[in-house]
């Protein structure tokens, strides 16, 4: 992982033709507004999305924790589900709904004679990303709210502080570290996403799009320039990451609730608005997916490109007869990646928690690097490093697996470290004093104790792997096309019944995985 990254850094400052050190590409980037504006655009998108996600997600988490809401479990599942598909699929569906020829656009125009605002460009990107990413805030904040002891709320009520005042003076500050962490997460994802701006941006360029274009683009590719942009992006995200670290360290405190917050019934009016808000938000963010499911059952023209009146299973027939390989690719590649991730994460977390020394701490820090690196950059770095005669991995399934492992492992390591830290050291010592060696202790005691948590985490990883796009799109070849990539390539060409069918299948995978997760995870707490 370090090797590919260093290749990118080297490429970014080495002249293509002369092979000497040069800042030409950096200069090129900053000298032309066409390029550096994409950076500004990206940050505008990421920051605004972050703010919207917090504004939508925090109250939702608060209401969800404080009040009785009918169908809590389902609601939570739906909220998570809405975040669990690649943003570009959402973008595609929104275009079908609200685009120039969108269903709702036409409907409103013909009934009210009113043209709804253009959803292409900045607004569209915002709409898609916010509806996709607010669940992250919801999950983080409701996790934090679970750790607030009810007595804190009671004692503040006792001192005459209730309602909105309490929310702003007590609850919100207590959740601040989580809100910061969540907004960073949203920020990073919004920044790194390139499917959405490519689909709905219509000329509103963000920098992952530039990277992609420079790399694969139709008008002349320049790998070194793509590398240079990647390096700039990494430096900036690193800055934000450190800022978030600094802020949350200043606000950090540990809480654990003996009595978690008791949910209560709201007044009838309040109750109505709470349900309206909660389900309204979910409905809006799930709308595109539901619409795609609907479309997947529509009749299509023989090539599968134009939707016709009436319903049929034709799209599915086409998918299964032609694209079975894609589904199998997804399972195969993601499955292998998942196993590698789990094994590596267990080993690294064991080294980090139980055998802490300089080398292991270094491994720990290094493994966190991908956390702040956009997927497209991971993809580029892998191609540039392994596009050589010694390790010709480009186009193979191996390189896809490697990129997925790199992309996902920081999260899995974090959660494994958290699980392992909760297992007291004395358990290991007990095993040792009873004559079990270190390896035996790890295999017979430590790993089985971690298994429950790891399994839950693995399902989450699985879901993110099967919906991964930003690095696979650069790395796939005809033989290693995954579902998500297939959908993307079809959708990029225009409306397509098969794409809808494939997204429905992908969604089905996701729902099943989530239900499995709920079954296996003890407290149903989801961490991404």
């Amino acid at each position: 992982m370090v090797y590919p990254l260093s290749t990118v850094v080297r490429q970014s400052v080495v002249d293509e033709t002369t092979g000497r050190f040069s800042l030409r590409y950096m200069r090129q980037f900053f000298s032309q507004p066409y390029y550096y504006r994409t950076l500004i655009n990206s940050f505008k998108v990421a920051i605004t999305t972050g703010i919207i996600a917090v504004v939508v997600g925090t109250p939702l988490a608060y209401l969800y924790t404080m009040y009785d809401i009918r169908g809590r479990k389902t609601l939570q599942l739906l909220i998570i589900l809405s975040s669990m598909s690649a943003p570009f699929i959402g973008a595609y569906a929104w275009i079908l709904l609200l685009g120039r020829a969108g269903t709702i656009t036409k409907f409103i125009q013909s009934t009210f004679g009113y043209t709804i605002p253009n959803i292409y460009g900045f607004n569209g990107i915002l709409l898609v990303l916010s509806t996709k990413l607010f669940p992250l805030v919801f999950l983080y904040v409701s996790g934090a709210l679970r750790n607030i002891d009810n007595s804190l709320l009671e004692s503040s009520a006792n001192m005459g502080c209730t309602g909105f005042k309490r929310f702003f003076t007590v609850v919100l500050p207590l959740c601040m570290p989580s809100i910061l962490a969540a907004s960073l997460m949203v920020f990073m994802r919004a920044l790194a996403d390139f499917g959405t701006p490519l689909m709905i941006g219509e000329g509103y360029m963000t920098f992952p799009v530039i990277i992609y274009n420079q790399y694969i683009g139709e008008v002349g590719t320049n790998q070194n320039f793509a590398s240079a942009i990647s390096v700039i992006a990494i430096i900036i995200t690193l800055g934000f990451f450190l800022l978030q670290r600094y802020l949350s360290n200043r606000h950090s405190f540990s809480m654990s609730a003996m009595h978690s917050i008791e949910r209560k019934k709201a007044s009838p009016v309040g109750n109505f608005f709470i349900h309206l808000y909660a389900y309204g938000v979910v409905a809006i963010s799930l709308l595109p997916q539901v619409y795609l499911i609907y479309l997947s059952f529509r009749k299509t023209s023989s090539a599968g490109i134009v939707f016709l009146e009436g319903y049929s299973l034709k799209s599915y027939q086409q998918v299964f007869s032609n694209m079975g390989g894609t589904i199998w690719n997804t399972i195969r590649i993601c499955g292998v990646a998942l196993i590698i991730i789990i094994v590596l994460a267990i080993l690294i977390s064991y080294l980090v928690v139980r055998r802490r020394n300089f080398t292991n701490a270094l491994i720990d820090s290094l493994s966190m690097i991908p956390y702040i690196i956009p997927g497209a950059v991971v993809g580029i770095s892998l191609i540039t490093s392994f596009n050589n005669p010694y390790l010709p991995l480009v186009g193979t399934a191996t390189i896809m697996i490697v990129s997925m492992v790199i992309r996902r492992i920081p999260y899995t390591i974090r959660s494994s470290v958290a699980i392992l830290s909760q297992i007291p050291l004395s358990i290991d010592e007990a095993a040792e004093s009873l004559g079990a060696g270190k390896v035996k202790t790890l295999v017979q005691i430590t790993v089985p104790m971690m298994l429950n948590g790891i399994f839950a985490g693995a399902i989450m990883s699985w879901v993110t792997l099967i919906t991964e796009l930003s690095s696979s799109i650069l790395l796939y070849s005809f033989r290693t096309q995954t579902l998500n990539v297939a959908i993307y390539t079809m959708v990029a060409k225009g409306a397509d019944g098969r794409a809808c069918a494939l997204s429905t299948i992908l969604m089905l995978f996701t729902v099943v995985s989530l239900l499995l997760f709920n079954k296996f995870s003890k407290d149903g707490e989801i961490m991404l």
Partner: protein
Amino acid sequence: MEYWIKIRNAMKKYGDFVAIPDISLDIARGEFFTLLGPSGCGKTTLLRMIAGFNTIEGGEFYFGDRLINDLDPAKRNIGMVFQNYAIFPHLTVRKNVAFGLKNRKLPPQTIEAQATKFMKLMKIEEYADRLPEKLSGGQQQRVALARALAIEPEVLLMDEPLSNLDAKLRVEMREVIKEIQNRLGITTVYVTHDQEEAMAVSDRIAVMDRGLIQQIGSPKELYQRPANLFVATFLGRTNIMSATIHTDNGTVGLNFADGYNLPMTNLKEVESGQSVVVSVRPEELVIKEEEVAGKGNCLRATVVYSTFLGLNTHYIVELDSGERVEIIQESQIDDIIENGTFIGLTIKAEKINVFTEDGSTSLVR
């Protein structure tokens, strides 16, 4: 006596911080030996050095004649009981108890028989096939004990095994531990910060403070003849009063602030006029009601308040010197002495302890 565990000049450092500068001690075969001290005194550190979980920065540790300094914990043949039980939550009670036996690659019948024997001994046989999380704290501790004993270790180490239990269970479990240890005759090193618990279970106790052993002795020795002021105050309750030595024609006495003179017969070499610290336990003070303030040779005091606890009644009184002392008296059928009453106090001279002014050395023979 045959010593089994021998520790010579043990030293423990964490970076530059010296947790244990220099400790030497011997523990006899079959002895119940307790390391007692406030938190941070190094008792657990020392225990973990014996167990092999802490590195040893200096000195030698022997089991019998065998130097164990660099021996792997798995090979020391020790049984260890942890404060948090450290039961394997994913294994049944039976598998927990059999875990150490399996690691010895014993034949299955032997493992089964041995595990059953110790589950019976600890009275947890009926839970054999349950997972430990369904058990209460006391039962879990029994599982931990059975597991540690099942491998028939040469040494049993216990690190505050009772501190996570509630008060009643703690008393019950310490009886169990004491009885089992007696029956099996296994050399045991026990760590606790609870002096009552230490006295209840131990043959001998080492009182530790700031990485040093303050005194080693039987519970009775430590309580009645503490080697220094720290031991006197750490074990049991005591009143600390200042006094001066007064010698007259070969008789030695203690002069207290308000003129009370107490003849002493068991003091070491002392000088007249030397300032000393006196440790008087609450039960070593006798209330003399009729000799009210002013009359006779006694300490004059005023009752501040009293607490009736059934068997005993505690009085907190203020001496003329302004010091407050506690008196424990067997409860009488008469009325409790009212707050504000003037009383006289005498001291049981043969029981009290006298220390040098800095509290470091006992002056009692």
